[in-house]
């Protein structure tokens, strides 16, 4: 009787495993077809120089040319600053939303997500209208006598950061909010019971518990920023040149798929390195796998 049951269960288990595998197969095939194969091809292309010979020229060029170093520095600088801005804006926002009653929180979440439903390009151009020399902010600021000469808010690093922080904010707020919502309010109450002032309870109990969500958000924002194209292209005034924009120039202007691919490979490697470091340092596995 028991043996029969065990066999039955084993068969069930096997069937389920195959079914799950079957269900996952299309997605896995898609990943191989649209990610693994093209990235492999990209890597392959990057190994050929202009003359079509196998060489490391494309990588050597990157090390030799100051302009490539500059582009990578800009890319990481913009990504870091955007992430920092998102944390400064996003943490208090997520905290505020997490304290609201559920209905209000849902409404607040809608407000955070609403910009998601507008095209990225439209939002970026909208920022141009707001930030430029004779844009809304400068007009109002000067009419109110807050400043005399127009502030340089668009077509430079400032504009790029403002636009990117706006676009990236939801990516930080969502995981952070989820993590905050999961913090048991009893912990805070217990801290208060033990004599902790609200600030102290926040610092020693709430904040550490919200960190996994924060780290998840930070990683997502930072990695997405590294490959950004539209916003720096529109709001950077041609002065904030990130890796993706250089890749576009290389392909469009020079048809140089070798160097473009090498740039892509280096960016991918650096991104993976960042993810790996984050994983090691911040125990990302617990954050991302935590919900399951």
């Amino acid at each position, binding site marked *: 009787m028991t043996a029969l049951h065990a066999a039955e269960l084993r068969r069930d288990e096997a069937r389920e495993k195959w079914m799950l595998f079957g269900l996952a197969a299309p997605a896995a095939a898609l990943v191989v077809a649209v990610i693994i194969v093209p990235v492999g091809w990209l890597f392959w292309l990057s190994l050929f120089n202009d003359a079509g010979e196998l060489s490391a020229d494309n990588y050597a060029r990157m090390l030799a*040319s*100051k*302009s490539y170093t*500059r*582009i990578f520095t800009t890319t990481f600088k913009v990504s870091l600053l955007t992430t920092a801005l998102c944390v400064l804006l996003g943490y208090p926002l997520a905290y505020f939303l997490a304290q609201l009653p*559920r209905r209000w*929180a*849902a409404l607040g*979440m809608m407000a*955070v*997500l609403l910009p*998601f*439903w507008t*095209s990225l390009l439209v939002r970026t151009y909208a920022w141009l209208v707001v930030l*430029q*020399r*004779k*844009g809304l902010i400068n007009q109002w600021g000067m009419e109110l006598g807050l400043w005399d000469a127009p502030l*340089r808010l*668009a*077509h430079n690093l400032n504009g790029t950061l403002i636009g990117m922080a706006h676009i990236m904010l*939801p*990516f930080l707020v*969502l995981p952070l*909010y*989820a*993590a905050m*919502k*999961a913090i048991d309010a009893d912990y805070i109450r217990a801290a208060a019971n033990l004599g902790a002032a609200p600030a102290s309870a926040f610092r020693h109990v709430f904040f550490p*518990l919200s960190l*996994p*969500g924060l780290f998840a958000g930070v990683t997502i924002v930072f990695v997405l920023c590294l490959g950004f194209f539209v916003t720096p*292209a529109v709001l950077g*005034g*041609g*002065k904030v*040149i990130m890796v993706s924009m*250089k890749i576009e*120039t290389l*392909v*469009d*202007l*020079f*048809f140089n798929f070798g160097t473009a691919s090498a740039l892509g490979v280096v960016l991918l490697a650096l991104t993976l390195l960042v993810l790996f470091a984050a994983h090691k340092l911040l125990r990302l596995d*617990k*954050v991302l796998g*935590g*919900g399951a």
Partner: protein
Amino acid sequence: MKIKYAPPAAAALRAALFASFGAVFFAAGAGANEVTVASWGGSYQEAQSKALFKPVEKALGITIHEETYKGIGQVRTKVAANAVSWDIISTGSGGGARGCVEKILEPLDFDIIDVTSFVPDTYLPCCVGSDVFATVMAWNTETYGDKGPQSWADFWDVKKFPGTRSIRGKMHGMLEPALMADGVPPGRVYEVLDSRRGIQRALDKIRELKPHVAVWWGSGAQHAQLMKDGEVDMTTGWNGRFDVAIKDGAKTAYTYNQGLQDYDCFGIPKGAPNKDLAMRVISAMSRAKFQVNLPKYITYGPTNSDVYKTGKISPAVARKLPSHPDNARKLLPVSQEWYAKWEKIASEMYQDMITE
């Protein structure tokens, strides 16, 4: 630690995922009686659409689909990927020349396309001229009134003309002004540029202006918008775009002094799905009957000199065109030979100059 996703957040995440898959494009396949034209967008393409595409569509009883693109580089990528979806492209003469050399544009059939009455040097074996335009300097009339820059030396002179500048983010049409600003007479510009040292000299001159460059523009629509918004005080750009912007209320003026004369042309990408019909469409668009309409919408001159014989271009309009003798003598014609020889090297040096 175990984190549980609260329902609102889960819903929010799901919404975010949906939102990110929002942009799906459906490419319209062109059938037998349809062609797809790709052009530069903005007021220029609008003018082409009203003057050429729509009337030719009607005259030939076909459908012309329009798309906007960024230039010959995209054609090259499409041809290389064997994924050509455009039948006709509108490009600058430089792009056309390169397209011919690289064999990414089809040779045109001049038995079908009649260029006998064309202005000299306004067509290539695989790109036939559609209009004559000029790269000029434009200024904000709120900043400088009527007393704007009259030479490239003025454009570079930030003491005499304090204010911000915008110049092109690509080398094309930028090195010639730089050399003129550096004192090279227009007639000797291409001679001086014919060496790495000459190109370097032009780049050094641009480096001088770099701290005052607020925007490196990327398209004609962009430089027109910059002037409309008063974002910069001076810019280089294409004359017709400025005229349309002025008509729309932009406080802008420009001069033909030391400008560069160039032309746009129509070509057929290699492997275009409707090549034969495309040839007929280009043939029609090259006729005086249709070309005569373009100056109504944008101040670009015709490449077909028969247009002047139609008597349909008013003297007032004619005087504003870059091809009018009074204007043409102020302009330096762009040297296709120079671009064919130096474009790649000079472009690389220019891009490095921007990011250094």
